[in-house]
């Protein structure tokens, strides 16, 4: 039972802590607990019951999209849970579910993992205030490119404004250029790390949107089993279905 609760906790881990999410989590936990206990009462062992139960979870990404929750954070949670035991890794066989599955090449997996890591790091950096060099070492996501562009534009705007003001007051052109450049650099990075820019709606899109963009660059998620994908982005629900002929 603890394992099931841990699984559900992981699935919801990246979502915002609000009433909607808590209500969804509670309802889904109740339903999954009912199923788990029924399977145990039917004589299944705990591992089988767990596998079957989590194979019926579905897609947290799809739920997040439907409910208007933060899509990216939901995706992060989905990946985190995949490391601890996803429907794709343990559930499909136990469920006796359909055999159709999506495969990723090792290269695609590595790329996706790197991009996910980048955004996870960005989220973490926002909280912990990671250094510029740490942020710079992250893989280049759309979010990161946008921030860099913002900084460059900010630098040049400040440079020219200071230069223009200096021109009105002084004729020392060489000194003025050096001073303007230094002042522009200082003001560009003044009091905030690049990551902080992500929370400023006027200078960069919010983290969620950036992250969603980064995630969308990866294409649709593939869990390795059809049962976990019932998202709109895919053409199939992955809802288990079979017909007898």
């Amino acid at each position, binding site marked *: 039972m603890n394992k099931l609760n841990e699984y559900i906790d992981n699935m919801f881990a990246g979502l915002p802590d609000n009433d909607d999410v808590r209500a969804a989590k509670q*309802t889904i936990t109740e339903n999954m607990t009912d*199923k788990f206990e029924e399977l145990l009462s039917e004589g299944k062992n705990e591992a089988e019951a767990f596998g079957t139960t989590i194979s019926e979870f579905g897609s947290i990404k799809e*739920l997040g999209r439907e*409910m208007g929750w933060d899509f990216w954070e939901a995706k992060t949670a989905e990946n985190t849970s995949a490391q601890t035991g996803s429907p794709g890794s343990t559930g499909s066989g136990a469920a006796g579910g359909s055999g159709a599955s999506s495969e990723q090449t090792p290269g695609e997996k590595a790329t996706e993992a790197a991009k996910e890591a980048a955004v996870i790091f960005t989220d973490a950096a926002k909280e912990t205030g990671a250094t510029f060099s740490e942020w710079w070492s992250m893989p280049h996501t759309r979010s990161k490119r946008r921030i860099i562009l913002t900084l460059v534009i900010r630098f040049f705007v400040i440079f020219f404004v200071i230069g223009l003001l200096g021109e009105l007051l002084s004729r020392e052109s060489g000194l003025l250029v050096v001073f303007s450049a230094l002042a522009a650099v200082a003001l560009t990075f003044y009091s905030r790390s690049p990551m902080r820019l992500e929370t400023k709606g006027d200078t960069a899109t919010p983290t969620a949107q950036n992250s969603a963009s980064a995630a969308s660059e990866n294409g649709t998620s593939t869990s390795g089993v*059809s*049962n976990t994908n*019932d998202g709109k982005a895919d053409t*199939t629900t992955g809802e288990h279905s079979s017909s007898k002929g």
Partner: protein
Amino acid sequence: MEVTLLISSDVLRGYNDVLILCILLDSDSYGYAISKEIFKRSNSVYSIKETTLYSAFNRLQKNGYVSTYSGDETQGRQRTYLTITDKGRKYFFEKVTEWQVTKELVDAFMPKDAGKADR
């Protein structure tokens, strides 16, 4: 012979709500019982996912088609029951009519032996 199919999300998406309302027409019910009933009535063909089920519950509630109440405590837990509203009944029968029309329309384009097609 058992043939595995994947149902297109677009086909079924609009009808999850109808399946749930149909079950609630008979009696009030709660999450897992509804999920089991869908599986049973579909002759073990369709197993709805938890997240899909919750999305449908939320949508039905927002639209005023169902309301909820806390039921008696069973097995140490108090379950939330769903009950269909008058608005929900009306919506259900509208969807039934819509389905008949849709079915006839799509059937007109299907081969006569579509159901027996060998995959």
